[in-house]
């Protein structure tokens, strides 16, 4: 019997696990995929919003502002990339100025600090590649960008080091209320827990509805993106949004923490909650609409495209708390944007509820900090040479686009909750995320994975399950 079982190892599940790992409790995270950060948390805009978007008084507004505040400190404690690059919301018509002002006022009411409304000249001075059609903009210096994988993995890794048990490839199928607590039936057997935290992303309604009569309804809204080469990464320095207007919500243009340029997303409701396929229409929309706010985007430098699913709940707000008619069942549901930005606060809030409920006591041996994978590129020559002398794997470049060494890949595999697949290595080290998109390094990374994990090349996957990379040997079917 666990004290707490958390369903889902996205940023929310991981943030809750991280917060709860401060206390003396037996905690387990159940995740249907082979790794953390395999759902929505891996495919989004990765913006740490300032907090002016959400309706004042909503959970979205409150947790966004709080999450934004916590993110910087957290990024230092847990060593993941975060940058306060600031954001601009562009307005194109004088007639839209009241809407821009309303956004400003809402930001103030939500507690967002340092905002300013800038005129055209000021905007263009700040971001020369913004279109000349801009009339004014809301500038929010507290807006930021984060590495969503880095954030998710750091939270989970630290939770793991502090004793949280992670079960991957374990899909929760049914939940039943027991006399004491809940019984979770999975494809890997039954788990029992006094408390359940439901952080199942687009599937959170399903689990909630298994135990509660007050039904939730989550629809998946797909967003398509294009990611551009690092050469385009400086095209804008801040995150550029547009004021929702006649043409809909507009497409954002932002640098990523790793120096690429990201444009997107679209918004299309889809039936299939695994439907993360991009569409020709979606990608075309992204490419044309991005040009409405930022000029001369070098769209020839797209290196990859992807799509993510927003978990949109009918009530249009985050749902965080114990279900009224299901004591001990705590939801983190309807966590669409700004879920990344809010996750430190979501973790705090949901864990707080569980802690109160169960009367959890703080540990005295909680490990508060974590060191991420060492990037030798940040060292000076002497330090780097000392490192290579000690461990020659750091002298061997595997991914030539992102200059990732064998040493980093081995670290990614061997550390707690280590990588088991090509995508796992990629999310932890960036090997394969560069301009050749793993054409060069994938056979090399596969060899390292096989060696380190004692696996056959035939069992190495792209992302777990059936995503096998090689299927046989030459001529094995030729008689």
């Amino acid at each position, binding site marked *: 019997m666990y004290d707490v079982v958390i369903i889902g190892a996205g940023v929310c599940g991981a943030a809750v696990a991280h917060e709860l790992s401060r206390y003396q409790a037996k905690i387990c995270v159940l995740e249907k995929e082979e790794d953390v950060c395999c759902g929505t948390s891996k495919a989004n805009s990765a913006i740490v919003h300032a907090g002016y978007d959400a309706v004042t008084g909503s959970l979205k507004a409150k947790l966004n502002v709080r999450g934004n505040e916590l993110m910087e400190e957290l990024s230092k404690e847990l060593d993941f990339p975060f940058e306060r690059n600031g954001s601009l919301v562009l307005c194109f018509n004088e007639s839209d100025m009241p809407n821009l002002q309303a956004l400003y006022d809402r930001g103030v009411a939500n507690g967002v600090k340092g905002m300013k409304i800038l005129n055209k000249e000021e905007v263009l001075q700040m971001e020369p590649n913004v279109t000349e059609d801009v009339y004014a903009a809301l500038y929010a210096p507290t807006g930021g960008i984060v590495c969503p994988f880095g954030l998710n993995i750091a939270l989970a890794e630290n939770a793991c080091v502090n004793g949280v048990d992670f079960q991957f490839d374990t899909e929760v199928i049914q939940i039943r209320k027991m006399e004491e607590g809940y019984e979770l039936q999975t494809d890997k057997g039954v788990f029992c827990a006094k408390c359940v935290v439901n952080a199942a992303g687009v599937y959170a309604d399903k689990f909630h509805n298994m135990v509660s009569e007050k039904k939730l309804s989550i629809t998946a809204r797909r967003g398509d993106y*294009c*990611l551009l080469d690092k050469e385009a990464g400086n095209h804008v320095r801040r995150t550029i949004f547009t004021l929702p207007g006649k043409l809909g919500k507009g497409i954002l243009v932002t640098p990523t923490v790793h120096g690429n340029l990201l444009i997107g997303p679209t918004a299309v409701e889809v039936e299939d909650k*695994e439907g*993360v*396929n*991009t*569409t*020709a229409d*979606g*990608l075309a929309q992204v*490419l044309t609409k991005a040009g409405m706010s930022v000029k001369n985007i070098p769209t*020839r430098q*797209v*290196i*990859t*495209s*992807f799509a993510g699913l927003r978990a949109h709940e009918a009530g249009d707000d985050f749902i965080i708390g114990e279900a009224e008619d299901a004591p001990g069942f705590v939801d983190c549901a309807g966590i669409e944007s700004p879920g990344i930005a809010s996750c430190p606060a979501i973790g705090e809030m949901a864990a707080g509820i569980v802690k109160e409920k169960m009367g959890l006591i703080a540990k005295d041996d909680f490990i508060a900090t974590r060191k991420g994978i060492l990037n030798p*590129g940040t060292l*000076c*020559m002497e330090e*780097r*040479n000392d490192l*290579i*002398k000690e461990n*020659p*794997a750091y*002298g*061997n*470049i595997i991914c*030539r686009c992102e*200059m990732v060494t064998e040493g980093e890949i081995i670290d990614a595999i061997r550390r707690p909750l280590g990588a088991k697949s090509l995508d796992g290595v990629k999310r932890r080290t960036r090997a394969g995320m560069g*301009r*050749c*998109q*793993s*054409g*060069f390094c*994938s*056979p090399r990374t596969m060899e390292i994975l096989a060696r380190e994990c004692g696996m056959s*090349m035939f069992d190495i*996957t*792209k*992302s*777990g*399950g*059936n*995503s*096998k*990379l*090689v*299927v*046989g*040997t*030459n*001529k*094995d*079917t*030729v008689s």
Partner: protein
Amino acid sequence: MKNYDIVIIGGGPAGLAAAVSARQSGIDSILILERDKELGGILNQCIHNGFGLHTFKEELTGPEYAQRFIVQAKELDIEYRLNTMVLEVGADKVVTAMNREDGLFLIQAKAVILAMGCRERPRGALNIPGYRPAGIYSAGTAQRLVNMDGYMPGREVVILGSGDIGLIMARRMTLEGAKVKVVAELMPYSGGLKRNIVQCLDDYGIPLKLSHTVVDIKGKERVEGVTLAQVDEKNKPIPGTEEYYACDTLLLSVGLIPENEISRGMGVVMNPVTSGPRVNESLETNLEGVFACGNVLHVHDLVDFVSEEAAAAGRNAAAYVKSGKDGASDAKTPVVAAKNAVDKDTREEMAQQDTGAGSEQEIELVATGGVRYTVPCTIRTSHMEDELKVRFRVGSVYQNCFVSVYFDDERVIHRKKMVFAPAEMEEVKLTKEQILRYPELRRITFRIEE
């Protein structure tokens, strides 16, 4: 810091031929830096034959062709380091490299030859919609897996792109027991050599669908199938022409991009058409003493031309070293950590200074009227060898047309050819004598004419 007269980055056919010819031109101190575990470059995975018809008048496999140059390089005692990645080169020709044994180290070169080859364009570059499952490989990656490691990436294959690598992999996968269902090509003509279409597709009954592209990829974990559609003149898919192919593998052969991160970092000026450096008749970039050859300069289809071009780069680098013009002695201390040492402004400034530096007026080579680019981009007659091969590619298929070369406004060459195709590199020979007859010559224009 160690010093060498010539440092060559990349030990593929270009690097090897450049090294051999530089040595034969009398330079002793040469170093090849190669990141792979053996010399030979991309040829090591090209186990099919068809290499060397021009150079050796026989049909060799890729590794055999490479071996001939490796043997020569070894006989000439040319120094090389394997498993060694060049990370950056300063404009002062300080090379930063790294390997397991020596760690990070610096080398001062008098001349640098860029011979880094090229990489394949990924799927994203084409914005192919659909899922992103396992089983999507660039053709060269699949080639490496099959030919070097002996692993089959899949059993039922669709290939997008009819470039040579795609065609060769269609045959290879078939020979190794896979079923290649179709090769689709976006353009109305193939991107590969005619002989490869015959020998790799026709001979195995593999259909080639021109003016077709992939419009959807199905399969969440592993590829389950792809949908092809015909495209119109603007390369837009035509609704209603979709055709579904069940398959577990999609190979992409959609173009190669010269690998010029290092060149850009040093401040080498690029030709946007080739994505390779702009070079003069000596295959020298805007930076004095920095030469480029092979696929890093422009993508070649025949390795023989790579070797020939690289030999010229080697000779020219040797001449440069012997002229004693290198400023190696007053080289500044390099900044190792700075990734993009030279920003765009300084780069442009340097380019300007550089073109202004030479006392002699350069002749500009202009590609127009169907000719996409030329290598070189400029000629200094004083540095020209007796004969110069100008290489170029055309932008689409031309039948029964002429390639014309104008010296300023006068047409001096007008040569007929049955077919010009984008897949086949063309060349025109210019002689020094011919050019010297036009002392006021400013520009040489290349165009295709009916």
